[in-house]
């Protein structure tokens, strides 16, 4: 052995041997260091407002559970998704609870039901008599194959936020608007070329064409959507054909009436401030953004129900959302469930969340709270909370699927193709575009079904 080391040192030179030796010793020490045991109850989440609220409540929780103090970890969205999926897939460390957005949840449900990384809450909700406490549509994004895996943070009704200064100056009475046809007919005077260059500078409505989630607002409002309650795709349903054909003639062709703004960019906000758009479909969380991102529009924005697709039809929709789920990795699942209920059913947090973000709680017992009736100067004195809350019972369900992102992209692709056809053919009426819409949606449905049928895990029986 002695000659081995002597040979080793002679071969490597003393300096290199020293560095190598130190490296080996350090590696051994690091490997032998004990892992710090993770104490208490830990939550991962991606929203700063939520994190601040929960941290403020930590002392109250800790006084009740001194042996299991609360730790709230704020993690950026993509990192949260990666760590969550790594934990579910490979057993890397996970917290007791994770708050996750709708766009991040589909993949969690892609495998066999037994391998979903969140605890199935269906029986816990029934046991604790809480299931009916929450608006039923709010569960739908967090439900897979009939089982509920998360508590919804908000209800996320969608209303139409409109520039009341422009509308009232044009003498338009929004109370006369019931359907989208009414809307575009009455708002027609606001489709304007302001500088006389031959191009429209103001549209009655705007959405972000590149943001796929906006199509869903219209689809589910009109009785269409991507999936049924059992996760079967419905891309080529009659409702979708009708709505997609209508959207194409709104977006494109000689009858175009919708602008295109990416509302999440500085450029988009500037255009909104300058009056490029008269109205934007806005979920509760987006309503909460207006006073922060567009303070100069104080007293110039009001909310109204979404116009319906037909008389007597639905006047709202849903967009976005967050849930909290108990991970199967939790060492204290019952305590974690207790904390989830504490955070999501608490009337105190519901109020603070509304004050901070305008997110309306889906918990029915909070709906009678007086703070929803508070007139808000930014929104011309409207009781914004009450308007949003009244829309909740009419929110359509948004069934979840691991193929949601594929479905959204396929339908958006159909809309893009149909817009090109509409431009080329000069379609003005939706009936003219309906045939092409049917053909393209049939193809999209076929593509999605192929993807789903390839998944051997989705065929596994539910427990």
């Amino acid at each position, binding site marked *: 052995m002695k000659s081995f080391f002597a040979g080793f040192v002679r*071969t490597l030179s003393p300096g290199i041997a020293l560095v190598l030796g130190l490296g080996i010793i350090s590696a051994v020490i690091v490997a032998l260091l004990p892992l710090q045991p993770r104490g208490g109850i830990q939550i991962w989440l991606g929203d700063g407002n939520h994190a601040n609220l929960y941290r403020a409540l930590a002392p109250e929780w800790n006084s009740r559970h001194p042996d299991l103090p609360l730790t709230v970890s704020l993690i950026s969205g993509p990192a949260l998704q990666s760590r969550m999926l790594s934990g579910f*897939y490979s057993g890397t460390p996970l917290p007791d609870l994770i708050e996750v957005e709708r766009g991040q949840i589909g993949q969690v449900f892609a495998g066999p039901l037994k391998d979903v990384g969140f605890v199935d809450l269906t029986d816990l909700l029934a046991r604790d008599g809480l299931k009916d406490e929450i608006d039923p549509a709010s569960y739908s994004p967090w439900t897979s194959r009939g089982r509920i895996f998360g508590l919804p943070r908000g209800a996320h009704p969608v209303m139409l936020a409109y520039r009341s200064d422009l509308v009232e100056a044009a003498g338009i009475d929004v109370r006369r608007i019931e359907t989208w046809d009414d809307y575009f007919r009455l708002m027609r005077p606001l489709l304007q070329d302001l500088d006389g260059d031959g191009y429209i500078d103001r549209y009655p409505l705007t959405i972000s064409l590149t943001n796929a989630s906006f199509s869903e607002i219209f689809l589910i409002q009109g009785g269409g959507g991507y999936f049924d309650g059992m996760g079967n795709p419905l891309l080529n349903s009659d409702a979708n054909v009708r709505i997609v054909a209508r959207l194409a003639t709104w977006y494109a062709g000689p009858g175009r009436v919708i602008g295109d703004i990416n509302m999440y960019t500085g450029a988009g906000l*500037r255009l909104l401030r300058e009056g490029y758009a008269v109205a934007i479909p806005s979920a509760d969380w987006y309503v909460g953004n207006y006073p922060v991102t567009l303070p100069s529009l104080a007293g110039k924005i009001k909310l109204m129900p979404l116009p319906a697709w037909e008389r007597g039809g639905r006047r709202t929709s849903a967009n976005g959302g967050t849930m909290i789920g108990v991970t199967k990795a939790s060492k204290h699942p019952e305590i974690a469930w207790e904390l989830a209920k504490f955070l999501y059913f608490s009337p105190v947090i519901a109020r603070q969340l509304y004050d901070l973000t305008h997110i309306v709680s889906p918990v029915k017992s909070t709906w009678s709270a007086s703070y929803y009736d508070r007139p808000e100067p930014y929104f011309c004195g409207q009781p914004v909370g009450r308007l949003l809350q009244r829309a909740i019972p009419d929110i359509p369900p948004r069934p979840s699927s*691991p193929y949601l992102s594929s479905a959204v992209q396929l339908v*958006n*692709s159909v809309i893009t193709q149909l817009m090109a056809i509409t431009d080329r053919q000069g379609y003005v009426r939706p009936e003219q575009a309906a045939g092409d819409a049917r053909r393209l949606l049939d193809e999209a449905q076929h593509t999605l079904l192929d993807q789903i049928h390839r998944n051997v895990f989705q065929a596994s029986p539910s427990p």
Partner: protein
Amino acid sequence: MSSRRPHPAWAPWLFLAPFLLFFAAFGAWPLVRSFVLAFEQTFGPRTTVYVGTLNFRFLFHDPLFWAAVRNTTVFTIGTLVVQVPVALALALLLNRPDLRGRSLFRLIFFSPTIVGSIFVGVIFSLLLEKRTGLVNTLLHAAFHSWNPDFPWVDGFVMPSLLMASLWLSVGFNMSYLLAALQNVPADQLDAAAIDGANAWQRFRHVTLPAIQPVIGILVLLTVVGALQLFDLPFILYADSFGNGPNNAALSIVTYLYQTGFRSGDLGYASAIGWILTIALVLIALGYRWLTRGEDAAA
């Protein structure tokens, strides 16, 4: 003759061991594992089912995969057709003996390469924005009939990507070609000029053959780089996770990423990866076959 003892027989292996260990852990094993994965369906690495050749069979009927192949091929050809000639033209301009401030121009042309593709993607998404983007704003100011909502990014996906890619990489290619041009023997150019060859003839018969090996390498690097297109569309079309309108920006690597890391189907992603690998190997072999004469001559 050296008086030192010869090295022990295990010494070479000791020196090779670090590389072999790293290569085995981070090169060979993942390669073998990904090959096995390509024949499985997965929900993360722990839940896997052997599905035989299903992933490959599905791949050949998957319209999204073929859209990705089509887009990547068009981008590769476009890059090749535009980038190498533009880089050569810039290099020829900078190689003029009477040019002043050559270093400054070289820095300007090369600087986009330094800032990287993410920055370039963000810059182009702002430049080409409808209505508020610099390009549309300037064009509308200059020509009142120019549509301020001209859809550069949404309506002209491939030209937008090619423009961004050109701005990003042309300086890199130019610096290689400039170095090659500066090594073209001056006496041969002088001899050709004395023999009455005009500028085009000198370029065609002296300069071009001299820089041909560098052009060959650049063509190979450009093709391999273009086939791995990912970051530019991912930034320019962030709303649709790199797909772009009607999947017009979807590249093979973007599709691989989406399948493996957004859908969690590592098996299908591995199958896509292996198809891409085979394509890259075939291109490299094709390149070697095409340049075999040059190797022999060298």
